[in-house]
């Protein structure tokens, strides 16, 4: 089952002719993902990699190829518009990889999306992967920029704000022989489409997911909200790691959302809330998978 996407999901890429978008579109094709269309205004009618048709608009791309999911690689000044175009085309899921979108743009996008049927993941995220059954998880659905080959099909759900920490967790799981149902990067921006709590709910409802790794970082209260929800509702074992315990207050640690201000959003407060929800805490980023397995198989 997995969550959000399956190996059958049809994907379109907004910004497929850019170098970043093109490179990752090719990697998704190599992984065996059903990448069926590209969108670049003004380049409609051309082909990507000699097999993927490019359209001028998302609406055309979706209606002519049956794509229900879009992944966005367009530069920050045009990213908010690209998201709204995907929403207007009635897509089920829009995944915004773009880093550096102005917060006020995202504020407007999020408000405009209320009541629409589209779910947004990101922005400033690595995307998501539902591993396939082939060699090195080939044949799965890879949306975004994650390395596909580190995955393995299985029953652990992974959710994170950070890309490389997601890969780290996935790599640890795969190395220990544990596969993943779906791995989701929700992104490092202060205003994003999907929260930790949203993803936990989906994993909880997904019969294929048996246990969950949740990776948080300083800033905001998303981890606390997820912990509160999990305490009352989650039936599956969760292990968590929170990055940024040593980060100085008032400084933006790379991600726009990773900032401790006014005493809020500290790693200590998040870990406290997670512990209170009976979530196992990985003391270091090196032990995320081991912590989960210990908590799960006890």
């Amino acid at each position, binding site marked *: 089952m997995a969550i959000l996407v399956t190996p059958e999901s049809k994907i379109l890429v907004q910004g497929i002719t850019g170098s970043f978008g093109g490179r990752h579109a090719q990697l998704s094709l190599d992984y065996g993902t059903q990448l069926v269309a590209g969108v670049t205004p003004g380049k409609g009618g051309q082909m990507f990699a000699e097999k993927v048709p490019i359209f001028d608009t998302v609406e055309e791309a979706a209606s002519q190829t049956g794509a229900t999911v879009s992944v966005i690689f367009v530069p920050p000044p045009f990213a908010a518009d690209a998201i709204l175009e995907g929403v207007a085309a009635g897509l089920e899921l829009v995944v915004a990889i773009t880093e550096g979108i*102005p*917060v006020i743009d995202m504020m407007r996008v999020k408000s405009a999306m209320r009541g629409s049927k589209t779910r947004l993941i990101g922005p400033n995220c690595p995307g998501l992967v539902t591993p396939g059954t082939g060699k090195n998880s080939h044949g799965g659905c890879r949306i975004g920029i994650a390395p596909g080959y580190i995955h393995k099909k299985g029953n652990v759900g992974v959710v994170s704000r950070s890309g490389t920490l997601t890969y780290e967790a996935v790599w640890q799981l795969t190395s220990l022989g544990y596969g993943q149902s779906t791995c989701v990067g929700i992104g490092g921006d202060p205003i994003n489409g999907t929260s930790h709590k949203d993803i936990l709910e989906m994993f909880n409802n997904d019969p294929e997911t048996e246990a969950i790794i949740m*990776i948080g970082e300083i800033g905001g209260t998303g981890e606390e909200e997820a912990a509160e929800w999990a305490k009352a509702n989650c039936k599956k074992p969760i292990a968590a790691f929170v990055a940024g315990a040593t*980060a100085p207050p008032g400084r933006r640690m*790379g991600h726009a959302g*990773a900032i401790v201000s006014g005493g809020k959003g500290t790693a200590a407060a998040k870990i406290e809330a997670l512990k209170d929800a009976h979530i196992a805490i990985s003391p270091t*980023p090196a032990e995320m998978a081991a912590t989960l397995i210990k908590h799960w198989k006890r």
Partner: protein
Amino acid sequence: MNIHEYQAKELMLKYGVATPPGQVASTAEEAEQIARTLQGAEIVVKAQIHAGGRGKGTFTDGFKGGVKIGKTPAEIREYAANMLNNTLVTAQTGAAGRLVKKVLVVEARDIKRELYFAIVMDRASSAPVIIASQRGGMDIEAVAHDNPEDLFHENVHPLLGLQDYQARRIAKLLGLEGKLLADGAKLFKNLYRCFIESDCSQVEINPLVVTSDDKVMALDAKFNFDDNALYRHPDIMAWRDTEEEDPREVEASKYSLNYIGLDGNIACLVNGAGLAMATMDIIQYAGGKPANFLDVGGGASKEQVTAAFKIILSDKNVKGILVNIFGGIMDCNIIATGIVEAARETGLSIPLVVRLEGNNVEVGKKTLAESGLALITGTDILDAAQKIVAEVKKFA
């Protein structure tokens, strides 16, 4: 990004937010000239640095106070002469302090009431929220902690913006009545427009004052801008004062590296912001102290790695380096080659532990092993952190 007080004043003026009349000066003579043009019995001179706590600060030559009140232009000239090209140390600057290159000369106002007003981009509601209090002029975080009931919050609709009735409600809650109610509401609306149109992440007016002649004005303002949006505000970007920033951070930004200096002695070089934070954490967990946050990004080039090494090594506290790379897509051998070249070019003489994992990792490890450099390999992040901590302790 932050700006100076005099720049904030200029921005507020553009949006019709009242502030006391005044101008910025680079020399004592200019300060005196400005003082001559101002009205009022008293005039204030304020050192222009980004850090707060100026009033209680001390200059490195012993002169006390980065905010002074004088009565005559000659007095103002004297104060300005003491502050300019002098280094001011405050509770927020650190021991090194900041060089004062400009002073703001403004009319002092007879103040009846001090209030607090701020607009912040709120993550929880994904919209701006207004925070106001009748207890202005003091540390608002202390008020929030000790007397949270004295703070008012007003959520703003992300698309509609601040409505008139909301502006009036805040004015009323702040105890503004009669003509002041309308004046206050107008100031709030103007400031909100400034907040949105300038892509601010936070604007704080502390204090917002009511003068004895019944005027509402901003006595001091602190602006924070959304770095992601600066590309569409060249006028604001031009106000960036790199001398107020850590020179290593300025240098790093030239190479699209994300560096933040800390006070430990183990430097780290990592790909990805989350992993970089986690690497700092694990250094501490292993018993060491991180010297920096450094994210080289997803596609680090040889030039970037070399620049990163130079920046790390410019910190004289650094006694060891931990490189932690998870090269998912990025070729580990490119990183390994970059590390070897950077180590050679910088004549690296302190311990270096490298943990490399991911794409083409075997070739990368071979490059490191055959380099002839005295570097140590870590099997995973924890192993690498423990090794660098042990190495640094050896030489301590």
